[in-house]
């Protein structure tokens, strides 16, 4: 049911693991089936210097997490925000229809992290 690409990213996830010294952590829960994705980022000059993820979810959730970290790594925050769930799914040679919602999760976790990072730095600027 999954493409070879999905299976590859599921079996050998890129950038998997936790990051002790992350600048920011994004987290989303999946309202559909109750899964959780966390992304950890190191940010320098408004670019994603390093990224890691951890996922509590299905094969598609793991594979989309892995793929999205590949897609945004090294990108500017603005560019990273432009990575859409459809792009993630496409990069994985598609997902079964029942699993499309899992790709939202990964892209949303990136958004969550960047938004948190930005509102944190605004607060710091105000201090």
């Amino acid at each position, binding site marked *: 049911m999954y493409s070879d690409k999905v299976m590859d990213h599921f*079996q050998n*996830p890129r950038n*998997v693991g936790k990051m002790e010294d992350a600048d920011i952590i994004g987290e989303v829960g999946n309202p559909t089936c109750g899964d959780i994705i966390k992304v950890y980022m190191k940010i320098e000059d408004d670019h994603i210097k390093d990224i890691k993820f951890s996922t*509590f*979810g299905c*094969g598609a*959730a793991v594979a989309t997490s892995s793929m999205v970290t590949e897609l945004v790594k090294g990108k500017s925050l603005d560019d990273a925000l432009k990575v859409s769930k459809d792009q993630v799914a496409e990069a994985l040679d598609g997902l079964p229809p*029942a699993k499309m919602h899992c790709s939202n999760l990964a892209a949303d976790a990136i958004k969550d992290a960047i938004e948190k990072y930005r509102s944190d730095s605004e607060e710091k600027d105000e201090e």
Partner: protein
Amino acid sequence: MDKRYYFDHAATTPIDEKVFQEMEPFLTEEFGNPSSIYQEGQKANQTIMEAREKVQDLINAEDSREIIFTGSGTEADNLAIKGVAMALKDKGKHIITSEIEHHAVLHTCEFMEKHLGFDVTYLEVDGDGFIDLEDLENSIRDDTILITIMMANNEIGTIQPVKEIAEIAKDHEVYFHTDAVQAAGQIEVDVQELGVDLLTLSAHKINGPKGVGALYVKKGVKLIPQMNGGAQERKRRGGTENLAGIVGFGKAAELARKRLPEKQKKLIKLRDKIISNIEENISKAILNGPRGDKRLPNNVNFCFRYIEGESILLNLDFLGIAASSGSACTSGSLEPSHVLLSLGMSHEVAHGSLRISLGYNTTEEEVDYLLDKLPGVIQKIRDMSPLYDG
């Protein structure tokens, strides 16, 4: 193909070689219609009679005419519930079942509520999946016409006190149907000893072919046919018989009966080995369902905390192992198993469920392979989980 390790016998079983041999002629040269009066037809008719007697023997029915062949276990469940409900609707429109029935029963009951104005009580179960007999008795009303409670659960292996349920049903003059699809071939199923009125079987769970089931209907029990057509199955199920399927079912029933004592002994040993090994070697592993003789000999079901079942299944599949899970992510409906939720489990815990079900041909070597691989698989996925801290 590389060697596969099949641990999903509760989903379906391989067709036994001896079953296939019996079936083969009826897929080729022996093609007569059992309703025809010439020789080919009469031969086919005779063959079905013999298969019926073998199924009769498996459940110790008094008379082979109490067996109705159907197109699946699901159809037999539908026939039991709808057939009794229609026959007794003037007496009452209340049905009692449990929350952990197979969908073949559960969705049929929901259908009766939604489309035919029946009222259904869904009995809760305790943490091991047992219904409460007092609850059952208290929920019987003047208009109750049917109790349908499964003999053994397909996910967690809980064996219900069917004999006691039958006694309560009899005391209140209510029909009692039990779905014994998972029980037959695993434990003794004796309809006379149990005192049930209707009982469902399915061939493909006992090393027979898919697409054939049976409903036992005790003599005298009122039942309105649900498949209208020809006079097959003594007018209780129209449609030209699945001759090869029925022959296969008969042979599978015969083998299941013969093999039962030996198979039971072997599988209980393997089951308990798996359970104690997992509990020793994997932390935060919760056994679902009871222990000991109230559990099906072929069923093991665990929840592994912090991880999700589809990930477990995919990783096992890479290693050649086939098993199943009640996780929301594997369900299609994206809801976790209703059985696990009924035990009082949270969505999150139900997520990490793994069912391992054994068959009569499962070997100790296969079990050892599974037990060797499983801890690594669980650890690999836990290492990816945001909920798990080393």
